[in-house]
């Protein structure tokens, strides 16, 4: 069991800035995120899209924002637990015990939930029996490409993931690339490579069509796709790869006894505490009158929440408001001399 001052759930921009606001007050935090890296929606949904409303930064991408936030919190040597989802939150007197699906346990007087709209999961295929084949002959990502050798692979999707894996796996497997419309979206170079391989007969492209059914017993044997003109074609398939992006699922958060409003957690707007003492919510996941789902609002929310976190983590110390420009304490914590 790891003891800390604050457990932060979510490594998006708001979770990262929470580390900063806690860190300059001398509080230690750990950060847990279901993704394999920091950035949250900024990295998963729009890494290349410019953001224009971060104060004093006229323009930056989601990726740049994440990189800069990580740089800003470097002095605090925070421990990140990626690829882990918080499953359980339990009260233990004045502390909270947090357990992840990887069986890591933490205890802290404070939790800040900066979980966006929940944890990211791949968008799944909904046709009959799809679930039955998941992990055996239906996959939403490629972890080990050796398992995709010498197979008949049907790939669904029209974006970068679908195109890149079609190219890569075509080196040692027979690929059918299936998309709902004729246009693919990908880097021009990738698109011309795909065209070339199609002409050489190494990749077969089926558009505009969608998955109609999966046939098989223990393993997938074939799939049927339906074209826009209602024509149906059966394709021999050992493995299905589907790339329809990620969706956000609230998951276990809904079961922690917090007052919820649709998919958001109700907080007060003085310190962003929930109905449970010591559990705070900030960023897209919190709601209060007038709430705006902006990154800058999340920054404000964690700044205020961090003050209450301090009071709970250091009940015998007096909280003193300080400026980074003049406080020797803060400058020491930032490693500035």
């Amino acid at each position: 069991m790891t003891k800390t001052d604050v457990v932060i759930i979510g490594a998006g921009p708001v979770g990262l800035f929470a580390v900063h606001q806690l860190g300059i007050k001398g509080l230690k935090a750990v950060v847990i995120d279901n993704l394999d890296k920091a950035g949250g929606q900024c990295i998963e949904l729009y890494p290349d899209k410019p953001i224009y409303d971060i104060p004093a930064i006229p323009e930056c991408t989601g990726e740049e924002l994440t990189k800069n936030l990580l740089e800003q919190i470097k002095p605090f040597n925070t421990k990140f637990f990626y690829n882990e989802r918080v499953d359980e939150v339990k009260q233990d007197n004045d502390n909270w015990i947090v357990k992840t699906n990887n069986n890591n346990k933490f205890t802290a007087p404070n939790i800040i939930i900066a979980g966006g709209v929940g944890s990211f999961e791949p968008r799944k295929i909904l046709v009959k029996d799809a679930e039955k084949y998941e992990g055996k002959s239906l996959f939403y990502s490629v972890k080990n490409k050796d398992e995709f050798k010498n197979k008949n692979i049907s790939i669904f999707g029209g974006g970068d993931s679908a195109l890149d894996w079609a190219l890569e796996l075509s080196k040692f497997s027979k690929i059918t690339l299936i998309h709902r419309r004729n246009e693919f979206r990908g880097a021009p170079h990738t698109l011309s490579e795909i065209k070339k391989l199609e002409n050489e007969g190494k990749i077969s492209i089926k558009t505009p069509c969608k998955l109609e059914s999966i046939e098989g017993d223990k393993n997938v044997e074939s799939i049927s796709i339906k074209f826009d003109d209602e024509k149906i074609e059966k394709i021999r398939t050992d493995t299905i790869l589907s790339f329809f992006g990620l969706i956000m699922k609230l998951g276990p958060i809904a079961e922690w006894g917090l007052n919820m409003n649709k998919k958001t957690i109700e907080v007060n707007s003085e310190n962003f505490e929930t109905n449970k003492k010591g559990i705070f919510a900030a960023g897209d996941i919190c709601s209060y009158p007038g709430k705006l789902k902006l990154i800058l609002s999340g920054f404000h929310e964690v700044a205020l929440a961090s003050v209450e976190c301090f009071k709970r983590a250091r009940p015998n110390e007096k909280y003193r408001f300080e400026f980074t420009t003049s406080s020797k304490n803060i400058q020491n914590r930032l490693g500035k001399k």
Partner: protein
Amino acid sequence: MSKITYIDYQDNSKTIEVENGLTVMEGAIQNDISGIDADCGGSMACATCHVYVEEKWFNKIPKAEEAEVDMIDMAIEPKKNSRLSCQIIVSDELDGLTVMTPKKQS
């Protein structure tokens, strides 16, 4: 104010007055219309405000830009008349617009 009708997959219909300038998604969220999730809040990043636009209205709405069409690829069961409701801005011209919400958004 313009009248927007939302019909769910079970054919339940709700007509509400939406302020011009708001999006069809915002109209739904503010009036507790079920069938539209809008997880990303309207940043065209999630495709969970996906709707089917009634044929006669489809061509009256400004065409979808490329980023929206790309995002519709991710929606469940996209069709020819698919749009993201966060990109349809309510105006007098769209008074009477009818959209159908899908069975599932994710």
